[in-house]
């Protein structure tokens, strides 16, 4: 049964054989196949997750994933600035707006998670600040990575135009030596802005998670518990 291969290894080790036995008795309709696909996606998304195990501590993996999302969008935005797309830029503008929304949601989510873990408002502020700072710092690193990759591409293209004669030479060493103060300053600015904005958003998220209006948020991120997963993937 190929569809079962889509489930995490730990899942298959725990439930694979009995699922196979069940599927041998069950008519494999299109609905069943789609349901198995959905089940595999669910199992992959919640691999070792508190939602599955009842142990509602927000996992580091999920926190990093949330922090990486805005970084990706900021990186795309940076790339668009390097290579402006002619004509309609609606898609890119939409991506930037989406990225900003996620960037706002990440520290808010962290703040609510801290409440869900039973923390105080101060913990929400710290969690929001850390996630906000991490998100913008990663965005900054991604931006510079794209800048350097873009420069390398431009110079390779220019060298090709010259017939590969090597008249255009570019060395990253002197370039980086020249720009590193600006890079550090920029990273510092991003870190401070991310931390301050993240702290404020974390506080807001904490307040939402604590107040009566935060029931739905609390339900999404869960509540503290003490049980351990019986099928958490040992390979992460």
């Amino acid at each position, binding site marked *: 049964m190929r569809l079962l291969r889509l489930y995490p290894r730990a899942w298959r080790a725990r439930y694979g054989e009995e699922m196979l036995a069940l599927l041998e008795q069950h008519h494999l309709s299109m609905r069943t196949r789609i349901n198995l696909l959905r089940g595999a996606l669910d*199992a992959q998304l919640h691999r070792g997750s508190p939602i599955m195990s009842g142990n509602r501590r927000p996992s580091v993996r999920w926190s990093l994933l949330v922090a990486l999302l805005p970084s990706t969008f900021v990186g795309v935005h940076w790339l668009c600035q390097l290579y402006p797309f002619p004509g309609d830029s609606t898609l890119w503008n939409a991506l930037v707006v989406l990225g900003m929304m996620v960037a706002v949601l990440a520290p808010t989510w962290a703040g609510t998670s801290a409440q869900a873990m039973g923390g105080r408002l101060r913990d929400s502020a710290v969690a929001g600040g850390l996630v906000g700072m991490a998100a913008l710092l990663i965005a900054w690193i991604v931006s510079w990575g794209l800048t350097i990759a873009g420069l390398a591409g431009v110079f390779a293209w220019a060298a090709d135009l010259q017939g590969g004669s090597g008249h255009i030479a570019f060395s990253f060493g002197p370039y980086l030596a020249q720009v590193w103060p600006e890079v550090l300053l920029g990273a510092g600015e991003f870190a401070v802005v991310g931390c301050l904005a993240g702290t404020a958003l974390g506080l807001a998220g904490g307040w939402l998670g604590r107040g009566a209006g935060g029931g739905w948020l609390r339900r999404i991120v869960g509540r503290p518990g003490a049980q351990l997963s*019986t099928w958490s993937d040992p390979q992460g």
Partner: protein
Amino acid sequence: MPIQQQRANDLADLGRFSEPALLVLASLAEGPKHGYAMMQDILEFHGARIEPGTLYGVLARLEPRGWISALPIEGRRRPYRLTAAGAAVLQAHLTVMRRVVSTGLNRLEPRGSRVAS
């Protein structure tokens, strides 16, 4: 919050899996069953066809919570049984549901009479 209400909410915390989880718990209340037997039983007493992906998504959520426990494998099939904690959650949820059903029916009755008259 009363303990009963809290236990009922515990089941609701399972999100889209809360309804199939309720059906699985109700099925196991009769006695230990393996996956296919649960599907057949639920189809019989409720009319809902639970697909394998959903069933095992539910089992993977109920077992770590200690609401059901796996028994030794029989051939290639593993039966599951309802634990005391699972029975308490089921009891709490059904009690709340019974109150809702009873209230709803009571409130509908005079309206029905009014419409009829």
